[in-house]
């Protein structure tokens, strides 16, 4: 389990990744060919990975995304120290905040 700011990355065994996730189209890479896990709306800073692999977005902001890194990768962000991730499948969870009657993701 790895945490970079408001993003938590949990290793998951491949057989626990729903089939529907693997069949869905992966999220496109950004203009710099990075896998962007989360983009800070206010700052434009991003939690991003440059490595072979694919990100599968959840259907809503509150649903976790899935990340596949067949040969590992390095997670970088403008304001946080980088984290080296071993190869495998991950669940990517955005931090959220409690709001009476609702829940909202955190923007950093």
């Amino acid at each position: 389990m790895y945490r970079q700011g408001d993003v938590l990355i949990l290793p998951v065994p491949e057989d626990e990744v729903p089939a529907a996730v693997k069949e869905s189209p992966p999220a496109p890479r950004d203009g710099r060919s990075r896998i962007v896990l989360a983009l800070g709306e206010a700052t434009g800073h991003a939690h991003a990975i440059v490595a072979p692999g694919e990100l599968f977005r959840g259907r809503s902001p509150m649903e976790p995304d899935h990340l596949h890194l067949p040969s590992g990768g390095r997670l970088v962000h403008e304001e946080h120290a980088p984290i080296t991730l071993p190869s495998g499948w991950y669940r990517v969870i955005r931090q959220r905040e409690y709001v009476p009657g609702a829940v909202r993701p955190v923007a950093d």
Partner: protein
Amino acid sequence: MMVEDWRAVAFATGAAERERAEAGVRAAYEAAGLRGPQRVVWAPSPAAGAIAAVLLGGDGQDVQALRDAGLGDAVAEVASLVADVDAGRSVRDEVRTRPWEAVRAAAHAELGPQEWARVWARTTGSSWDAVNGLVTRIRQGIGEMAGAQGEERGAQAERLLRGATLDAVLGQHDAPWLWLFEELGRLGELAGPAEVARAAGWWWPYENAVIICERPSELHRDEPGRLHRGDGPALAFPDGFALHAWRGMPIPPGFIDTLGTLTAADIRAEDNAELRRVMLEYYGYDRYLNEIGAKPVHRDETGVLWRIDLPDDEPVVMVEVVNSTPEPDGTYRTYHLRVPPHTRTAREGVAWTFGLTEDEYRPQKET
């Protein structure tokens, strides 16, 4: 083929592309086998559009009801726009409802329920809440122009205006569905309404005339897509029709102006729990904690848990978290996240912010 960003269409602001919108309207009429509208009336907001729809489709009593509800000035302004317009009957059914339903039914039949649900989730479903929420708020705001009077006459005017908003074709706010139809290669059958959506706001088609609305001049949303702004209207149209909101919650227009000069005493004195929450967020939990001398409830290696008890409201419970990566000046930035009121420990709170239990939350590396 270039895929349209239908989310961007739904939330587009700025002046309508009038020629493009009018061409779209003509295409929609043509596809329905109708002669295009002779008159095009541009309304500066959906509120003005709804009033115009009441003026064109209602009788003298309806117009009087709007005036009695205190909307005399707005009615006079819109009346000048539609002064010599003989609109004829509404052709919404032919122009929008029937062709739309035909495309939807054909697509559904072709895909079958399972695949339909899948495509729907990927397109319409992924943008529906945000767009539909916005449409609902606009309808409410239009109804409240009259309903705020709080009398029987106000209720009658509110009913008329709300009714008019339900008769509108939604223009840019039809985007979630247009996205789905494009995904299925069936957008061509709705080329007219799709073109209006790309270029303008709501519209009301009649036999001889069409009312088309401008897009918002201002639209501000928070990350989950809710209307949100702390220093002005979150949604505004060129004629001044506007909605104020904080993280989706409607707030009175004047309330915004008080936020800049808040004190901790003002926050404590506010009776309305929802407004008090807005005040607390705007003021900053950390500043408030500091000023009222709040004490931490629990502390562990993940952070500090704070609690503020509020009269007649659930307590505000927060975790104070320290960023693991130092700032350029060597300090560590702290921030406060609100967590459910039953939270007992800092670890439980931080774990909750990631949807995990206290035991599950064990990061091996944090930056």
